[in-house]
Every structure is written in structure tokens, then in C-alpha cells.
């Protein structure tokens, strides 16, 4: 499944870049994070609770920055599992300056889901993904657009 979109953020590009590529900051916007373990600047492990329809699970995700071209492009590979289910996600992000105080983020994500979540929840996946994406971006916007960084 491929997801993509564009997000306008009322914050300078450098600030957006720093936030989105810092595991400790960006994961504060991920839903239901249980733990975070940063091993090096390119790798971190995050445990999140997520669900699709009737199937819920704790996903242990290994995340790796594949490409980091400050301040405009990043690619991330995330791979993780919950009992009976597995997910792999390759995401790309491109940041451009609309002006000094506005950044446009174009993003896309190629998601492969295996196992129980895929079997039971395939037709619910889009809705679940939209919900998570909305929450994530609303949070990112709120945090980045605040007058004082929060």
C-alpha cells in the first residue's frame, strides 16, 4: 500500500528538519509510544501500540535512516512485528521552503503488512492509516508552529 500527501507547516525548514529527524522529538508525536531506544544517529528502536479494526498489538519497530540530505530529503526504513503480524514501511520526505517561515513537506510511504492484521483488517487499513497520519501530522504541526518550541 502506498500513502502520500503534502503538509504545510508554519515553521522554518531547518526547524522542521531538526524535529523530524530527531527520534526523541518525532516519536513524541507517534501514537501510543511505549518505549524508545536510540542506538546511533541512524538507528533507533521504538515500541508502539497500534491496531486495525479488531486486531491490536504492540509493535516493536526497528527504524533506520536510509538517506539524510539535510535539510531537504530523508528516507526511512521501519520494520517491526507484533504477534502474528508484521509491518514494513519505507518512507520518503522532501522539505521545500515556501518562505522563511513556511515549509512544505511532501511525503510518501510504502507499507507492507503481513499476517493477522493484513488478513483481518485489509479493508480497514486505509481508515486506520488515515487516522494515524492525521494524528501524527496534527501533532507535528502543533509542536512546530508553537511560538515557543514544545
Amino acid at each position, binding site marked *: 500500500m502506498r500513502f502520500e500527501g503534502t503538509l504545510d507547516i508554519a515553521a522554518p525548514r531547518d526547524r522542521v528538519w531538526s524535529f523530524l529527524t530527531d527520534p526523541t522529538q518525532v516519536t513524541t508525536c507517534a501514537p501510543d509510544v511505549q518505549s524508545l531506544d536510540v542506538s546511533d544517529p541512524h538507528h533507533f528502536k521504538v515500541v508502539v501500540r497500534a491496531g486495525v479494526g479488531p486486531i491490536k498489538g504492540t509493535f516493536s519497530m526497528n527504524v533506520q535512516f536510509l538517506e539524510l540530505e539535510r535539510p531537504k530529503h530523508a528516507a526511512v526504513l521501519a520494520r517491526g512485528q507484533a*504477534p*502474528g503480524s508484521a509491518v*514494513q514501511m519505507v518512507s520518503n520526505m522532501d522539505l521545500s521552503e515556501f518562505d522563511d517561515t513556511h515549509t512544505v513537506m511532501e511525503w510518501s510511504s510504502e507499507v*507492507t503488512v*503481513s499476517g493477522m492484521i*493484513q*488478513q*483481518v483488517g*485489509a479493508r480497514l487499513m486505509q481508515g486506520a492509516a488515515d487516522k494515524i497520519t492525521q494524528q501524527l501530522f496534527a501533532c507535528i504541526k502543533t509542536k512546530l508552529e508553537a511560538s515557543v518550541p514544545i
Partner: protein
Amino acid sequence: MAVEIGGIGQSVKRKEDARFIRGRGNYVDDVKLPGMLYLDIARSPYAHARIKSIDTSKALAIPGVLAVITGKDLVPLKLEWMPTLMSDRQMVLPTDTVLYQAQEVAAVVATERYIAADGVAAIEVDYEPLPVVVDPIKALQPGATLVREDREQKDNHIWHWEVGDKAGTDKAFKDAEVVVKQDIYIPRIHVSSIETCGMVASFDKINGKLTVWMTTQAPHAIRTVIALVAGHLGLSEERIRVISPDIGGGFGGKVPVYPGYVLAIGASVLTGHPVKWIEDRSENIQADSFARDYHITAELAAKKDGTMQALRVKTVADHGAFDAAANPSKYPAGLFHIITGSYPFAKSFVEVDGAYTNKPPGGIAYRCSFRVTEAAFTIERLVDVLALEIKKDPAELRMQNFIPPTAFPYTSSLGWEYDSGDYGRALKLAMDKIGYAELRKEQAAKRAKGELMGIGISSFTEIVGAGPSKHFDILGIKMFDSCEIRVHPTGKAMVRLGVKSQGQGHETTFAQIVAEELGLPVGDIAVEEGDTDTAPYGLGTYASRSTPVAGGATAIAARKIREKAKLIAAHLLEASPDDIEWKDYKFQVKGVPAKSKTMQEVAFAAYTNHPQGMEAGLEAVDYYDPPNLTFPFGSYICVVDIDRGTGEVKVRRFVAVDDCGTIINPMIVEGQIHGGLTMGLAPALYEQINYDDDGNIQGGNFMDYLLPTAMETPNWETAKTTTPSPHHPIGAKGVGESATVGAPAAIANAVVDALAHLGVRHIDIPITPWKVQKILKEKGVAE
């Protein structure tokens, strides 16, 4: 008199129903033993992946979890692989690679079922996903992802099997006036018996005796398999007892050995406690043996007038990751070569190639005798394609071509000797009963108004009752079956058989055979199956073999008893045995009806006053090796209406005329046909298990896999003709599967018939509203 006895031909009420309708059946999950532990299985989310590591520490830390078993633990016991019934092998648990989604990866043993499930959830497996191949045709292409690295042969080809006269068939096609060709996919489906599979294994460490209660259709064969697989661990066949208690549906899915069985036995031997393993619904559909999955290309050569001449069939069979089908050893594609059906093809040639894919293993016969449904569907669909091609009524085309009743015993060009048949009589009865001519008129009138109505016929021939020992074995064990009868002094009888009922009504029908042969009331005859410590050895119940094989054994064992009883009767009547005849269920002095003895009187004498020099008692056992298979047949006609808005197919009428030879219990036969028709409706319109490109199962639960219920099922109209089998002791042929085999083609033919004037020639089953609506839109007739 006959009614009192309840012999052959009587609709005796099913003796087993007294407990079933009161909820007093005894299924595997009802078995509870002191100190019993529970086993649950962790399964792979990936269809193909390398296992980098398995971390069991968190699972083992859960209070109540006693053990976690992985593939590596099984290596020292040489139990990580087990043989399949098809000369292949199958992983019990993987040591490094998983080959299909929902494959067993580790097992947890715990004090309670829910704790075992918690343990499964806590197991952490690090997988590295590998490329996946789910399409068997792609799997056979060069460079395809290799499914089985463990084999010496480094491709996905399992076997090639062919039968018939290739050169002669090719020549017939070259010379033919008309050739039709059709690709047909028979999709992967699942038996979905209402009771899932399970086992309670109980190993007595002191006596070295293993007792297992399990859902198996073939308890004796399973006992031998356990002894062969685990003999090196000290499990010896005389100390293995397999008990199949009541079974909630088998349909072929409870013939194979699944890893869960091996794990439950292993866990009991390891812990010394009884261990219970019961699958949940999703595990059952996702990991247990599937059925069908045949990609068929079929060609038929005929004269312009419709005379059928030759048949050529090429098939790719998807067997998943292991060839764990349950076919007789000599027939890797089962009895698929019954594909010439009810027609006298002078030349025919059939070839099948088996392929490995990253899908669950199997290829079992789902309520059909080893790939017979695939064969019957193909030929009956192809006949309709020919009818369309030469613009001939499909009923007329069939009538023109049927093997005539005078030609039996008839040897087909693929080598089977059909025992008996009268195909025209069955089709004519079905046509009369449904009002075929009137329906064709109605169809023409409706078509003129733009309404979509279709009439479909299926005149199938089955091949059941495997089988004669010269052709049939499983793991080398010949496919005979057995019956042991003991008549007690009070004239009551105990009958034990090597087969195992899963709902077929054996406790009634086999009692009726004995009642007929011995003149004892059916209520005085107890039938017991499924306990290997007490029942004689047999190969079990599947492929409609119980009546053709064990039914033969029952009749012959009873006749052995009657022979001895006659000598005792002569002794009691002070007459020569030559002057004694068996008449009206009694022994009479010929011409003197007043001088007679009942079987009860003889039975008492067998223990109290038997002739000097004769052994006491009245018992017999027979191991029956049938001289041939039996060939039940039938003609089904289906009428459908199609909704031009939704694409929904509604079965308006369905007439099923079956001929299964001598009928033992008409009520049970009718019930078998009703169930079979519903299981034939299912793949025709609803059921399919699909996989996406990553090997994710689409349809691994009852939300996505539609089993027809009373809501979807039409009113079945049944009728019969009776053409006894000439070689069977009571003339019976077997009927458990006829309707499953015959129904799908009738329904598919009806749908295609409804759309034929739009240029539609074939639609692959299941014919879902989505598929039909797509066609209606393409043809510009959707509402």
C-alpha cells in the same frame, strides 16, 4: 417383518442422533484428564522468511508457562521433519526458514489454555523476509523463487504424472472437425469442518503407553504413522492407542497428520502429563490442508454433429510448500483421470504437474474421492462449451454421447473399468422433474425482455471406494477395510469397523447391513468405530469408501456368521444343513416353514448347545479387498436468475437425481445429498482462499470466507435411480460425496447459460456478484 428388522432400504432413524441432538456427543475438546496441560502454537506472519533468532525468555517468564518448543529443540529428537503421505516431508517446526504464512514456528506448553496463548504472544522472532512465490505457474518458470531449499532438486517442480495415449490423442485432435479449448481454474478452498482439529495426548511413563484422542478420519493409519515417525523414541505400535471420538465433520481435512499432533504427543512424552491442543478457527483455515487449486487447460475434439472423440487435459497443481496431499501412493493427482466422465472418448490424454509455492501444504480431497471434483467440473463445463460452439442444446448433446447402459462394464480410454451405469435414465428423470422443455421456453421469453435466466446441467460420474489392493495403498498399506461382528448369547450384536464416522451415520447404516444379513433388529446391533485397541485395522473414512469397502466387509463378515449359524440351526432342527434355507430372516427346513429357528435362538445355542466338534461362539471378521472401484453417477439441473443490478446469482431451482446403487438408508442418503449440494454450492458461488503477492491469505477467517448458511442455500429437490454395483456384496456404491462433485458444474453452467447470448463462454468459480456485475457492465446490460 422388514420394517421391524430395519434392514437395507429402510429409513431407520439415526441411532447416533440421540446423543448429538441432546448435546451429549463426546468430541476431543470434551476430553479432560487430571493434570492436563495445554499447548498453543506461534505461527509465522510471513509467507517466506529466514528465522534469525527466536527469543523465548519473555514467554518462559510468564507464570504457568512450562516449556517453549522450537525447531532446534526437535533436532536432537529427529522430529523437526515428518513424512507426508505423499513421499514428501514436512516441517514440524522450522529450524531456519518458514515457507508459508501461519506455519508453525514454536509451541508453548502451559497449565491453562489462555496462559499458553499469552506465552505465544510473548515469543519474539526476528525474521528476515524472503521473496515469495504464490502462483504455481510462475513457480515453475526458470529463475522463480525456490520454495524448498532442503531438496536436492533446485526448482519448484514436484512431479509429472500422465496417463492415456498421447500420440493417438494428438492425432485425433489434428483430424477433428471441431475442437474447443477452455482454461479452468478450480480455486483453493477449505473444508472448514465445524469442529477444528485437535488432540489430547497422554503418555504413561511407567507403562510406556501412549493414548491419544484425536480428530482423525483414519485412526489405524495414524497409529502406524506415529509408530513409524516416533518409533526411535520408544513409541511402539502395540503401546499406542488412537481413539477418534465423535468428530464434527472431516471432509478430508482430518486425514493428514499436522505438526500440532506431533507437538502434543512430544509435549506429553516430555512432561509425562496429558497435553491438549485444539486449533482455533483461523489456524484451521490458514494452516490445515486446503483442497483443489488446480489450473486446468482442457480440450475436447468432436465431430460437427457433436459426437465426442478425444479429450486432452494439461494441469498445474498447486500443492503449497509441502506435498502433503492424501492421495493413494500410485496416484499423485488422485483419480483425476475419471475426467472422461460419462462419455466414451476413444482417445484421451491427461497430464498433471505438481508445483511448490509459499502457501500452506495439502491438496486433500474435500468431500470427493481424490481430485474427482476437479475432473467432474472440468468435463461437465467443457461439454457446455462444446454445446455453445456447435449450437446444440446441452441436454441433447449429453444424451447423444453418454456411454450406453449396454456398454457396462465399460473400460475408459484412461483405464478405469466402470461397473454399471444408466446415465440417460438419470438425465431424463431430472429433465422431467424440473420441466426442462418449459424452462427453455421461459428462458427464451425472458431473454426477449432482457431478463437473465439460465439452466445448467451436470451429468457426472464419480469413482469411489478405494480400493483394490492391486492399485491402492497409502504408505504401502493396502486400502482394504474391515469389520468384526460378535453375536452375543442373547442375540445382540457388537459390530466394529476400521472406518470412522464423522457424521455419516455409520452406527445406523452398518447396523442395517448386519440386520439385513442376520435377521437381528437394527436396535439390537451396536456399532463401534475409532478405537484402535478394539476395532479391526482399516484405512478409515474418506473418498466415499466406507460403504463400498467397509460395507462389503460388513456384509461378508455377516455372511460368514450366517454360514456357521446355518450349521447350528441344522443341528437344532435335526436336519441336514443342505435342507436348511435362509428365508424371511429365519432358518427354515425347506418346505416346512413351521420348522424354523431365529438368529437369536441360534446365537443362544452357539454358546449353550453347539454341535460337537464345532467351535463355540458366533463371531466373524472380514478384511475386504474390493475387486474394483464403484462408479456412482447422477444428473443435476439448476435454474438461476441473475440480478442485472447487483450481479447476484439466485438459484431458483435445483433438481438432483443421484444413483448410488443399492440404498441402505434412504433418509441418510437424502441427508448426505443435501449436505453435499450445499458444499457444492459453496465453491460455485462463494468460497475461495486467495493470496496476495506477499503470500498473505485473503480469506483466513469466517468474515472473509463465506460458508453458505440456510440464508444462502436454496431448496434442494432430490430423486434417485438405482443401478446396483454388480461386484459389491450388496450392490451399494457410496454417496457421501456425489453432490459435492456434481453440483458446482451445474451451477456454473447455469450462470454461463444465462449470459451465453452475450458471448460469455466461461466464468471461473466462485461466481461472485462482483465478477458477474463486471461482465454485465462490459456487455452493456447492467442496470
